[in-house]
């Protein structure tokens, strides 16, 4: 009898949990589903309902989104920037982290602290001087500007993560390599770097996500439509075509596709990367 009672208890707590968890999950996913369904709906059908399927499927809205919003060029720009910035961050941060973590200098901790200050600096405070600097170098509408900026702003967290990881690598490996005549550069590229692959992929994921989803720098430094990144492209498309909503939803779906695909393939990496990024404080 008591077994039955405890079983019922377990099941009822489970039920309560599901009663909360499922609506919460719907809450998170609903905008996505709504956008997906609405992307092929005629204007008249979009608003006024929550879940209805379209009567006519307007798949041509996707074609319109691609043509009018230059979605593919936006995605291409975003990817270009994200990939290059990620690449640069990994290299620059790895070299800097190597020094802090593995080379014995007295001011190591000071340098680390110096970079950590970067976490606390709000981006917006630096905007105006950055605009001045970019203008001096004629960097507007230049993807390279964004690449350099994104690289710089992801350096503190990347260095922090890499230092934490590299410190955990045992010293014996390097010491025996040095006895064999290995210089710092060889040590770093042939030993530490391969061993640091986990943290490098974490840093890569965080940086890529940051670059792809970034908004403010793009808004300020990109005015040429052909150079727009995803974030700006979406915003501007909404601004233009405020009467026909179907293509707008279609463009949103196209824009988020790459991220969803990346997440599907690299779920563990993405989550652990963002945990590390959030726990940094």
């Amino acid at each position, binding site marked *: 009898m008591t077994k039955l009672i405890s079983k019922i208890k377990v099941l009822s*707590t489970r039920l309560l*949990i*599901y009663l909360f*968890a499922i609506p*919460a999950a719907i*809450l*998170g996913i*609903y*905008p*996505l589903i*709504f*956008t997906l369904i*609405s992307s092929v709906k005629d204007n008249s059908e*979009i*608003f006024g*309902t*929550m879940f209805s399927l379209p009567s006519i499927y307007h798949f041509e809205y996707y074609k319109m989104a691609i043509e009018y919003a230059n979605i593919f060029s936006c995605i291409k720009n975003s990817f270009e920037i994200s990939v290059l910035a990620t690449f640069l961050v990994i290299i*620059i941060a790895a*070299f*800097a982290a*190597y*020094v802090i973590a593995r*080379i*014995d*200098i007295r001011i190591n901790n000071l340098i680390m602290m110096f970079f950590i200050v*970067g976490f606390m*600096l*709000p*981006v*917006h*405070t*630096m*905007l*105006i*001087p*950055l605009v*001045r*600097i970019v203008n001096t170098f004629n960097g507007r509408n230049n993807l390279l500007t964004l690449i*350099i900026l994104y690289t710089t702003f992801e*350096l*503190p967290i990347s260095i922090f993560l890499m230092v934490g990881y590299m410190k955990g690598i045992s010293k014996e490996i390097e*010491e025996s390599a040095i006895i064999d005549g290995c210089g*710092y550069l060889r040590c770093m590229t042939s030993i530490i770097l391969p061993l640091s692959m986990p943290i490098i992929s974490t840093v890569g994921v965080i940086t890529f996500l940051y670059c792809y*989803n970034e*908004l*403010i720098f793009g808004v*300020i430094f990109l005015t040429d439509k052909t150079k727009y990144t*995803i*974030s700006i492209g979406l*915003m501007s498309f909404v601004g233009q075509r405020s009467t026909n*909503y179907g293509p707008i939803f279609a463009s*949103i779906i196209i*824009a*988020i596709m790459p*991220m969803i695909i990346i997440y599907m393939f690299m779920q563990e990496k993405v989550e652990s990367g*963002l*945990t590390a990024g*959030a*726990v940094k*404080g």
Partner: protein
Amino acid sequence: MINNRWKRVSVAIIFLLPALTLYITLMIVPIFQSVKLSFYSWNGVPAKLPEFIGISNFERMFCDPDFWHSMVNIGWFILGSIVIEMPLALIYALIINSHIPGYRIFRVSYFIPVILPITAVGLMWRFVLYPTGAFNILLQTIGLGSLATDWLGNMNTAVFAVVVINKIVFAGLNMLIFIAGLAAVPTNVYEAASIDGAKPRQRLIYITIPLLKESFKIFTITAVTGSIRMFDILYVMTGGGPNGSSDVPATLLYFEAFRYDNFGYASSIGTVILLLSLCASVILNYFFGNSRGECK
């Protein structure tokens, strides 16, 4: 290690140079420049030099009701973090941690909004909150149709709508912090408590939550500093409107600088954001103390 000190130092310098150069020129120097510019007036034209006006910008700021309103809005974001985001993130984490059937699906659906561009997420929610959008339909269906309004276009509700959406979305991110924290709690503590007759609810209140202190600290610091710098989602969903009702200092900064060309005044807002951010970090770190090494 390599014993030649000069070699060590020179290699260190070379390896550090790219990072330090970028960091100093594009982050450290601009901060100082920005603080300095807050004491000047400038309209952004390179030919015209900034004019030194002392603390006029700050005087103007502290007398500006829009500024104080934006600070209050930050308060709403912080409040939302504590009241909405924290419980949600904790509950999500507990659900995921309990590994009930389907927990993986839950994890994905809580987390997906976080990896999407904030523009996309903001826009999607914007359409849901339209006067004729899905949310109002939902209210009508459950009989609360009288509450239906233009959530983002109504001055009284705009900022709260953004706060709620922001917290729902980012609860998914902060859930990860609590999951990591929960994973660090040793299982034998729970076993010992069960043996002593503790019920699940008691276990939750008296064991889990106290042992998550580090996670709460991380969450609070991230949430508060994040609220102070809030910009992206507001820009996408309301643009600070309607009529500045959902402005925060960061959006004020953006508009003052890039719409009204008041670069000096905008810089002073930036300086205030900087100070707030630093103070919050320092105060919160002090307040939470160094809890490492306590319960080991």
